[in-house]
């Protein structure tokens, strides 16, 4: 046993040194999710334009341009498919531009579906966008405008019908169209007023 004592001492020293080394080792855990931003939060360094935002905006831009080409050629289904891809992009969670790009993509998608006479589908796309909006913007107002246009289109289809059910549906869609346009106007005015206030000397 006495002969093993130096060996044991060396082993202990090596093990202790290894423990200290690994304990102090910097692995730079960068995978932690950023904390959620609050409404009252002041300007933070994370607000800086970053690569992820630029890459995702560029990706969305390219899908829109592909849709432009398909639309120009009358291939509306393919255009719809391209705009749907914009909705699958993983935009940075706290970038306002990203949220606005998604709202705008929904507006365009709904308009394309209206052209394809897929009004129910278009209504779902718009309703989901309005529900998911976290703040008011010109883009949300635009989505309300599209919602109004959608109800206007539905009402327009029913305007010459003489059945009671259709007359009732006509009235309902007309009412909803007016509500949506009103909401759009209110949001636009509020944003405009806010911007004017900000620009005042």
């Amino acid at each position, binding site marked *: 046993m006495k002969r093993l004592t130096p060996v044991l001492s060396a082993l202990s020293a090596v093990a202790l040194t290894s*423990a200290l080394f690994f304990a102090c080792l910097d692995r*730079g855990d960068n995978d932690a999710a950023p904390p959620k931003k609050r409404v009252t939060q002041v300007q933070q360094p994370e607000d*800086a334009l970053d690569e992820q935002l630029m890459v995702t905006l560029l990706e969305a831009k390219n899908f829109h341009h592909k849709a432009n080409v398909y639309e120009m050629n009358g291939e509306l289904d393919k255009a719809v498919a391209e705009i749907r891809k914009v909705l699958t992009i993983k935009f940075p969670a706290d970038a*306002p531009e990203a949220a606005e790009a998604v709202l705008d993509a929904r507006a365009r998608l709904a308009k394309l579906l209206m052209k394809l006479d897929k009004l129910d589908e278009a209504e779902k796309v718009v309703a989901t966008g309005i529900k998911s909006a976290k703040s008011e913007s010109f883009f949300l107002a635009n989505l309300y405008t599209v919602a109004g246009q959608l109800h206007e289109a539905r009402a327009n289809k029913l305007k010459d019908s003489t059945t009671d059910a259709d007359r009732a549906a006509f009235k309902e869609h007309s009412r909803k169209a007016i509500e949506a346009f009103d909401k759009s106007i209110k949001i636009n005015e509020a*944003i405009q007023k806010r911007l004017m206030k900000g620009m005042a000397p």
Partner: protein
Amino acid sequence: MSNEHDNDPIPEPDTEPTAAEQKHARSFADLVDDLVDGKAAPPAMPAETRELLTTAGMIHASTTDVSLDDARRDAIIDRAFAQTLPAELRSVDDPAGDSDGSDIPSLTERRNRLHAVPWVVAAVAAAAAVFFALNPPARKSKTATRVQVQYIEQTPMSAQLRSRPADPLIGRIAPKDSAAASKRLDRIFSDRLSGYRDLRLRRRARTTPGGSK
């Protein structure tokens, strides 16, 4: 001190020893030899002979380098410890401490236990090394640190360099343009790209020799 030789007259120096004296001397010499060899003395013997034997042992011990073997040395030390230990440390079976200390771990046993200590230390340290190798302590993100430095350098950060709502850039959207998302996104991207390039160029200027800093 009385024995069979007490009443014998003191023999003259030149007188030849008798057969009885020679026999007695031989038997005592055997006892001394046994003592020197470490053998135990017979349990029964005349008191005078025992005293002589004890005296012989003392003379032998004082004139020679006598050492105890390990087992005997440990036994003696254990016995000494057993007598000096406080009562509460003695065996629970022997609260009065009447035993000879055999219930108390012997020095050899305790030493054997101590031999395990370096192994335990090495094992614990090795386990700690493996644990920290597999579960490194989390540290603050390097990216966050870099951005923090950048933030301090540029405070306050101009609006052009920040992610922000595009309302001021796009303005009110006319109903006839409600589906013109592609044009609006082109405009937003172009504006943000300008700010992003500005940020990149500033960063490069700081890190390139001859740059602004």
